[in-house]
C-alpha cells in the first residue's frame, strides 16, 4: 500500500487530497509518470516528497511498501 497526498492545484486537479494505492516495485519517477498519465498533470509543476522528505533524484529512488508520497506544487498567493 502506498499513501498519496496532494496539495494546492494538484489536489484540485485530482479532486482528492489523499488516496491509497496498491504498492508495486517501482521507482518514484515511475509512480509519478503513472499519476501524470492518470490525472493529466503535465501542465502542473510540483516537487515530490516521500515520508516527509523532498526527493530530487526521483529516477533512482525505489519505493517500499507503506511509503507516503506527497506532490507539492509551489503556491504564489500573497
Amino acid at each position: 500500500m502506498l499513501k498519496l497526498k496532494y496539495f494546492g492545484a494538484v489536489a484540485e486537479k485530482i479532486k482528492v487530497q489523499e488516496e491509497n494505492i496498491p504498492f508495486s516495485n517501482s521507482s518514484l519517477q515511475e509512480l509519478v509518470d503513472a499519476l501524470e498519465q492518470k490525472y493529466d498533470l503535465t501542465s502542473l509543476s510540483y516537487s515530490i516528497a516521500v515520508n516527509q522528505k523532498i526527493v530530487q533524484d526521483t529516477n533512482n529512488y525505489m519505493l517500499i511498501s507503506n511509503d507516503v508520497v506527497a506532490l507539492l506544487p509551489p503556491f504564489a498567493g500573497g
Partner: protein
Amino acid sequence: MRYNRQIILPEVGEKGQEKLTQAKVLIIGAGGLGAAILPYLAAAGIGEIGIIDDDAIEISNLQRQVIYKSDAVGKSKALEAKEMALSLNPLIQINAITDTLNVKNAIPLFEYYDIMVDATDNLHTKYLINDACVVTHKPFVYGSIYKFQGQISVFNYQNGPTYRCLFPDESSNSKNCVDSGVMGISVGIIGMFQANEVLKMVLGIGNVLSGELLIYNMLNNDQQKFDLVKTNTNPLNQLDFEKKYNIIENTVLEISAKEALEQIDNSDVLFLDVRNEEELPKISLTNSIQIPLSDLEENLKKLDLNKAILIYCQSGIRSKKAAEILKKHQFLKVQSISGGALKLQEIIANNAISVS
C-alpha cells in the same frame, strides 16, 4: 514600558529586546501577507523595517489587507503601511519604498537589511528574491497561499537550502489570489507564521523553519512539515545575477491588445497562446499556435525564429514569462500582449473585428 510583556519572557529579556532594536527587516510586498507581518514586527520593536510595494490600495484589498482604511482607497500601500506602523510604534524606523523589487534595486536593498520577508504574489519575484539573497548571503522568510493552504519556510539561512532547492522549475504557473480567491484569515495566519520566523531568527530562539517546508491547511487545521536539503551547488554571484536578470527585465516588451490585433493579417507575425488547452475564451486567429507555457521550452522548434511572435495568455502575466523564455533562446522579435486573451476578446467584441 512598551515592551515589558515580552521582556519578562526568559527567551527574550533585555538582551533580546536589544537584538530586536538592532535588527533591519525588509518586507517585500504590502498586500495580504505584508499587512499581517508588518504590524507584529513593528509592535515587537524591530528597529528598522523596510516595506516595498508600488501598488495603490483597491477596495477589493480590504477583505484581507486589514491595516488599510476604507477612505484610503487609491493611496500608496507602502506609505499607508508606514503611517500605520509608526502610529503603532513611533520608536522604530520604517522605510516605505514605492517601487517594485527589480534587478536594479534588489542587491543594494538586500545588502542593507538583515532579513528579507517574501510577501509577494508571484513566482517570478520569489526567484528574484532567492537569487538576490544568495548573492548577498542573506536569508529570506518565504510565505505563500493557495486558497485555503499556505506554505512557509526560511531559505538561505546559515547555509541552508534555498527556494530553488525546493522548486527548481521556474516555468511553473501557479495562480495568485486574484485568480484563485482567498479569505483574509488565510493570509493572516501565514503572515503570522512568517513574522514568527523573523522573531525567532532575530532573537535566536526556538527552531527556525530552515530546511523545512511547513504546509498549513486552514480548512482542516492539518499542519505538515517536509524536510529539504540544499541541492543548488552553483551559487550565483553578482555578475551572473545581473546578466541573468538584465536579459529578462530589460528586453521584455509589451504590446497593447489593440496594436496586436492590427497585425492579424500580417504573415510575418505569429500569435502564440501560452494558456492551457481548456482555458477560454478561445481567440481564433489565422496565424496562430497554442503551446501551454509549461511545454514551451520543449516545443520551441514549432516556432519560426524569423517571425515576430506576439504572445498572449489569460491576462498578460504568463505571456511575459513566455517572452523571457523565447528571448533566452534567441528569438529576437517577441512581444507580450498586455491584457491577454481577456483584452483581445473585449476589443474583438467591441469592434466586431473579423479575425479569421
